[in-house]
């Protein structure tokens, strides 16, 4: 009798192979992958990986003082052990200039409101220090930072402003020796800004971590994946524009991001010693898209922007912040300019074009104001 029962049961079981496959594979998967299973081990990857030279520098600074020494190439060259084989010696005069021009100046005014990333403040600050004419200074506006509990980012407590410099107007051929490296927003520049002479290497979902890896980046003019390492060694560029950081918002943390950015910039510098590198700010997101409960918000974007802005030296690395053109008084991307809260509508790229044209740097005479 009970044998009959068991037999029936086994027959039933035999008749539902899919159920068994799903259940068994689910149990196995839940034991193996903590994304779907119960977290058996707490993988704290970020903590392990952040122990690094740049990380230490950043932490040391943050503990001590608001005034930031520049994160310069040679400094990292001295301290960083892993990347040395790729380093080309940086020219003497560059080092000299870095000593004063590359310094970051902290403004004393504290902006209380976290969200007040407005242009007014920027203009006021600019006017105030114009007499000093501190060329090549990248300023940071401090504000009262928020407490952020996230393993991905913290509130930088300051806003990076476009590197001060007597920028010139770009002429028609200016962008002919330019390369743009970036994610989907750079793809937007390719699609809608219409800088025909420039080379564009960008992909949706591109990150600073993937940029120089073997998987390659799509060269938009041909639609083919190319190995950027190779391209940058073979071709000669006068200007390299970089804009990366959106897809990094939920990956690693800001220190890792900065470290990787730095090493990429070093790498590019080694291959392209004459190129002026423009680090472009990541565009903020709209109020609707801004989500403080995830890592997807303007505080995090600003954190990334401040991190990469610190690489600017005002000599051959510049930080360009195009946010003021597109954001409202609270720093949100204007709702009517975007569908998804992240990307500009095609028609608004005109402004960006204007911005890029207005922020040209003439390498030959960096000391003269040509306007």
């Amino acid at each position, binding site marked *: 009798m009970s044998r009959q029962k068991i037999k029936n049961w086994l027959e039933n079981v035999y008749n539902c192979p*899919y159920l068994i496959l799903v259940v068994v594979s689910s149990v196995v998967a839940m034991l193996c992958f903590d994304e*779907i299973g119960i977290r058996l081990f707490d993988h704290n990857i970020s903590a392990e990986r952040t122990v690094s030279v740049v990380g230490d520098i950043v932490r040391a600074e943050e503990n001590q003082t608001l005034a930031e020494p520049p994160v310069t190439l040679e400094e990292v060259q001295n301290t960083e052990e892993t990347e040395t084989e790729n380093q080309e010696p940086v020219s003497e005069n560059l080092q000299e200039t870095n000593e004063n021009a590359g310094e970051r100046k902290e403004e004393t005014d504290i902006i209380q409101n976290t969200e007040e990333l407005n242009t007014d403040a920027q203009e006021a600050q600019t006017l105030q220090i114009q007499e000093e004419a501190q060329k090549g200074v990248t300023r940071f506006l401090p504000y009262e930072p928020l407490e952020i509990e996230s393993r991905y980012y913290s509130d930088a407590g300051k806003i990076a402003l476009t590197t001060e410099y007597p920028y010139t107007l770009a002429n028609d051929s200016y962008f002919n020796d330019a390369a743009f490296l970036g994610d989907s927003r750079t793809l937007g520049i390719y*699609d809608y800004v219409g800088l025909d002479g420039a080379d564009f290497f960008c992909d949706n979902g591109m990150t600073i971590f993937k940029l120089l890896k073997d998987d390659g980046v799509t060269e938009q003019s041909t639609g083919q994946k190319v190995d950027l390492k190779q391209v940058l060694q073979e071709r000669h560029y006068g200007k390299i524009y970089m804009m990366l950081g959106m897809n990094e918002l939920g*990956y690693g943390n800001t220190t890792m991001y900065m470290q990787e950015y730095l090493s990429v910039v070093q790498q590019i510098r080694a291959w392209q010693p004459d190129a002026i590198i423009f680090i472009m700010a990541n565009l903020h997101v709209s109020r609707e898209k801004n989500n403080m409960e995830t890592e997807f918000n303007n505080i995090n974007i600003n954190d990334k922007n401040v991190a990469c802005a610190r690489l600017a030296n005002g000599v051959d690395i510049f930080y360009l912040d195009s946010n003021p053109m597109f954001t409202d008084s609270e720093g949100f991307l204007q709702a009517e300019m975007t569908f998804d809260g992240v*990307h500009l*509508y095609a*028609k608004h790229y005109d402004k960006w074009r204007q911005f890029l044209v207005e922020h040209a740097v003439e390498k030959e005479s960096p000391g003269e104001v040509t306007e």
Partner: protein
Amino acid sequence: MLFSSVGFLFRFLPIFMIVYLIVPAKYRNVILLAGSLVFYGVGEPYFVLLLVLSVLVNFALSRYMFWEPKSPQNNRKKKAAKRRKRALFLALIFDFGALFVFKYWDFAVENVNGLAGNRILPVLSLALPLGISFYTFQMVSYLLDCYWGKVSKRAGLIEFATYICMFPQLIAGPIVRYGEVSERMAERRIRIRDLENGLKLFAAGLGLKVLLANQIGTLWNTIMTAGPGNLHVIVAWLGALAYSFQIYFDFWGYSVMAMGLGKMLGFRIPRNFDDPYTSRSIAEFWRRWHITLGSWFREYVYIPLGGNRKGSARTVFNLFVVWALTGLWHGADWNFLLWGLGFFLVISLEKKTYGKWIEQSSVLGHIYTLLLIPVTWIIFAITDIRQLGAYLANMAGIHTGGVLVGTGQLVRYLKDYSFLLIACVIFITPFPKKWYHKWKDRWFMILFLLLIFWWSVYEIVVGSNNPFLYFRF
């Protein structure tokens, strides 16, 4: 909680199913009800109270409808009829009142204020309780069925609450009528075959949602991101096509998952879609698209209004009401009303003029439907009227601001999405369904469904680690 989430697939569902299967059959309704409230409460910790309140009010009124005082009375029949009317009236006021406040208040008030020129009524900005449109309709259907005496065996509190809250169909339908589940509600046996088949169906639905709808949705997003107004005519149509695919596979996938889950629980949840995109007229499309909603409006609005039995003028009016309401049911905005009324116009025209002719000629009918449907979905998708106008103009080849998204981008889109588009085209035909039913017990199909399941899970996991996977920047 969404079906396509790790929390549902690997936490809620296994735990719930184990409990559900081991408890004695008579407690299954209670377990299902409790599980459903947990399912709803995880995502809507406050609105679950509204749901419970609605259930209690509706149940009380459904009982009051047939309540008879013990003491002898004069005019017994008259009073009973009055009571029934009163109960129904109160229930409708409560149900549609709640729906109006949460869903339509702001829309109505903004328009009233706009007309009046100043703020005479406050905008509430309430969040929309998840699934309120669906469960409200289900409760109303029960009350009306009771009122009309269509319910043979009226539900007890637990049964009624379970019927409304049952998690497979609570959030996004199908809108089940009590008669369709009452038998199983009272008694159901769950055979292991049902678990097997239900799970297969669920995996198929999950695949439709995660592997087709979500993926093709990125194409639509990409095109919208570039911005309506500057789209090449082909890009505009490609976008409309992508959205048509997305909304269909999303909703169909969800309904199939609901059917699968229903099967696993011992119910038979009616199907909601019957290859709508293979229709030969818009009227036929609506007989095959969101079937349970269409039949709700037919049963509870169109026929009570007199249907087509009161002369042609009245028929047109009835159709107008049904389609205006269908439009508004989908969302509180002008574009939804426009969308509904567009169907009213087309379906009336079909009824009066070319409908017969077009349904006879199969090729012409298909072309006609396939050209019109994407246009209707664009009206559905774009809430901003000015943008909607710009997009429709682009589809007609009219550009006021110049073409910024042209053939260059088109080539890239086609390159990136060609396989997916082909897959989508295959899945709007009746063949995949036929193959599924023919081979669902064969080993290769079982392995294929297993692959679909785990592939979907992979996409969900990658997507939830990076919630913006489908918005890759």
